[in-house]
């Protein structure tokens, strides 16, 4: 780890202004990706702005939405009775992130801001049609995720919460990388007030929806309706664990299993 200066923010405004004036500042939430990256000397921010002093953790129901504060840990989402009752698929997804240490430190805001192409949360956000609330504005999940490790966040913009509309039903199925346990492919399927949504993480550079599967499920909501829909492998990720063709195939399998689980 290279040397950096550390600032524990006392308020959102304090965090924002410190970040805005830093030469190369980074927000520190749970640190589950940032700190290992810094230890490996792959990232070298000059200033770390620690958000743990700001009260942004907590889960509450607001109308038809479940609002999860940005600093809420994965373990808190997984064990929340409110989430378990209203969006059990979201609780289950959080329970499947990383290991107990990661789940007890890592936060939804940190995960979403990092926009790892193999992270689980992006599938839930896009699959449920969630809204990302920031220090400046509200964005739809699809507007928010713009590419591999890329989001619509401005330099000094801070996520404060994610608001999930409660779906009629939802499920998430992940095929984990055997080594890292990140998603090789994860598919989130939801029946929402605005129709059926199918969101895929892990397979591509960023989370994406599969319109063909959504249409197929709209007319026939059954596992078989999506299992054999061919997914184009061009542009999908490829590594020593999974070819693009294999990932494309797994999208259908995981989608079908998600539907079966609903």
């Amino acid at each position: 780890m290279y040397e950096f200066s550390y600032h524990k923010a006392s308020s959102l405004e304090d965090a924002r202004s410190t970040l805005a004036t830093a030469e190369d500042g980074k927000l520190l939430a749970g640190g589950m990706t940032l700190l290992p990256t810094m230890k490996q000397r792959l990232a070298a921010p000059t200033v770390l702005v620690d958000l743990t002093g700001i009260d942004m953790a907590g889960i509450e129901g607001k109308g038809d939405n479940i609002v999860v504060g940005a600093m809420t840990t994965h373990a808190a989402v997984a064990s929340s009775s409110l989430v378990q009752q209203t969006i059990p698929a979201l609780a289950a997804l959080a329970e499947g992130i990383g290991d107990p240490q990661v789940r007890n430190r890592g936060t939804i805001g940190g995960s979403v801001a990092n926009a790892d192409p193999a992270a689980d949360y992006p599938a839930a956000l896009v699959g449920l049609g969630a809204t990302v609330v920031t220090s400046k504005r509200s964005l739809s999940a699809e507007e928010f995720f713009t590419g591999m490790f890329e989001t619509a966040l401005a330099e000094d913009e801070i996520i404060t919460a994610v608001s999930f509309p409660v779906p009629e039903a939802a499920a998430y199925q992940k095929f984990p990388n055997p080594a890292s346990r990140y998603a090789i492919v994860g598919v989130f399927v939801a029946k929402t007030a605005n129709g059926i949504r199918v969101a895929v993480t892990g397979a591509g550079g960023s989370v994406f929806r599969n319109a063909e599967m959504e249409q197929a499920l709209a007319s026939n909501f059954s596992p078989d309706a999506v299992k054999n829909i061919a997914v184009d492998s061009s542009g999908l990720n490829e590594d020593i664990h999974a070819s693009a063709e294999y990932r494309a195939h797994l999208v259908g399998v995981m989608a079908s299993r998600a539907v079966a689980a609903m």
Partner: protein
Amino acid sequence: MTDNNRGIGEAVVRREDSRFLQGRGQYTDDMNLAGQLFACIVRSQHAHATINSIDGSAAMAMDGVVSVLTHEDFAAYGGVPCGWGVNNKDGSPMAEPKHPILAEGVARHVGDPVAVVIAESPIIARNAAEHVQVSYSELPAVVSMQQALDASAKPIHGDTESNLCFDWELGDREAVDQAIAGAHHVTKLELINNRLVPNAMEPRCAIGDYNSATGDHTLYTTSQNPHVIRLLMGAFVLQIPEHKLRVVSPDVGGGFGSKIYHYAEEAIVTVAAMKLGKPVKWTSDRTEAFISDAHGRDHITTVELALDREGNFLALRESTHANMGAYLSTFAPAVPTYLHSTLLAGQYRTPVIYAEVKAVFTNTVVVDAYRGAGRPEASYLVERVVETAAREMGIDPVELRRKNFIKSFPHDTPVALTYDSGDYAATLDQAMIASDYAGFEARRAEAKQRGKLRGIGIACYVEACGVAPSNIAGALGARAGLYEAATIRVNPTGSISVLTGSHSHGQGHETTFSQLVADKLGIDYDSIDVVHGDTNRIPFGMGTYGSRSLAVGGTAIVNAVDKIIAKGKKIAAHLLEASEADIEFENGEFRVAGTDKMKPFAEIALTAYVPHNFPLEELEPGLEETAFYDPKNFTFPAGTYVCEVEIDPDTGTTEIVSFHASDDFGRIINPMIVEGQVHGGLVQGIGQALLEGCVYDTDSGQLISGSYMDYTMPRADDVPSFSVDTCVTECTHNPLGVKGCGEAGAIGAPPAVMNAIIDALSDYNVRHLDMPATPNKIWSIIHKASAAAA
């Protein structure tokens, strides 16, 4: 008094666990010496490059930096030695290029040490290492063995003719060729034994310390064999006389072979401490371990098995390429030769066998012994080719094996070994019953209803433990002895210090050896302490590897105990005014046979050290004895493993639904420790079969699987709850009748798992699949077969 509950055969809870489970072990990195400095090694980021210049001035200018060392600072010293020489077919010696401590003008693999920064803190050293300016000119990398042996490939060592290290053979080629040519059936397989990264829990660490007043060097290091390091480094590298070099290996967190070898870092800290007059510590991190610890396996093999019409084995022929990596690690040449091809008979009466092995230099990390060392590779190819032959000939794979089993002992194999004992049908039968082999087809049918492909696979392995005897090993190229030493030091009040040359790095020696001595002397287990890992405290010993500690080290202990008893009888005879010949020793008591006259062990001990009533004119006082034991032969553990898998055809995922191991380890001292060793070995074997694949980029020579993000270590949820049992045929040539259990799981598991997978895929016309059997590979097979059928 006899310790009835903690003698031989009892499942005594490991004494070591108290400190290890409480985080109170004392590992090398836990030690910090006064004034200690810290080394960070600048490693090559290129697989193959000329080093034009190294400029350490910017690093030296940084606060807290004490020194920057390059190969010029080691010019007076030798290279890292190889401890086993292998000859070519024509009798000429293998190519043995210099393995410099720091790269001399050429870097030959990613991770090759190029320079060393020594500073007042680890962070300063690491920061400064990034400021050492190394000018490289990249050279083409030879990464695969095929690339290395291609006629157009330049030798990666300037002083060798090619990248071929040796071309070795064993067995009667002509007889094998003839048998194969005339056989009813020949099964031929081409297979890869995948390269593995050892991943001991504790990364390597070394501290050099030099006392300029006395000229004494001390090296603290994570070694499985401190005396071997003292000999290799002292005599061959640094020319430090052995009486001036102490090597200490305190608690060591796993080795699996990777901590046998003498590594450059040990020489670096020893030299640096002398140059700088301060202790110097180097601690590897996990990333560094991936590119600097010796890797394992990495064979490409063609194997042929010839059979007659009835399925009797007629001949076996092996042709293997073995990757050595960029240099020769300490025992690398022995692994694919004398520790491998000698095991090609397996459990079978195959009358003639021929093996040829070509060892190859590549621009990759060195490869050496890793849990099983050559024997897993042998077991894998034998058990895969036998299984394949059974399928091709339509013979039940269990019956084909049984038909060809060696049934009488001793048995001379055609590949130089004499198996002393075994009962292969017994372990097979036991495994068949325990795994309900007969009920498998019903389970397969039930799984099919759930959409799963269920398969069963067996493997009948044999291994050879405790490489020996020294004179024969020496004739075959070993440059060290292969005995073990032990001293039994009886203290005046009757407690005992066992000083052993074996080294425990997870095996539980402190428990097992104490049980052994408690049983033999009939004294309290708690009055026995085991000392290991310090060349100033123990007799010259060879350490722990190759499942040798009990069979070789334990025998040395027993032999030393026998000497103690013999001397004790003389003392007792004097005290009891009886003839020595009339003294019996049992349950901790020296007794005049047929009388109630006796002296307890503790009184004999006290008499030996307070010799007021003692036959001083005939006998020395004191009670301390040393034994060196050089075995007459290897020991030959064997067993049958049965693995059952279910494959999800939609994803290609393999789940091991059950795994049974029936092993014959000879006599067992602590069944709980043995079971733990089997579990650990099985997990590593399953890891090799399903998960662990070391992947290099074949163009750049970069290690792609260089962290746990990409290198899949087996975890608890990857393996089933194991079912294990044992049969006992005793080893005939050591007094304990023990054989060894440390590597069996890693030897027998890979073929059992892979045979089960091939069985599960029997509808898809697949003959062979290379490890690791990843979901992607299995899905591709299923997908291609389904596409072809459609």
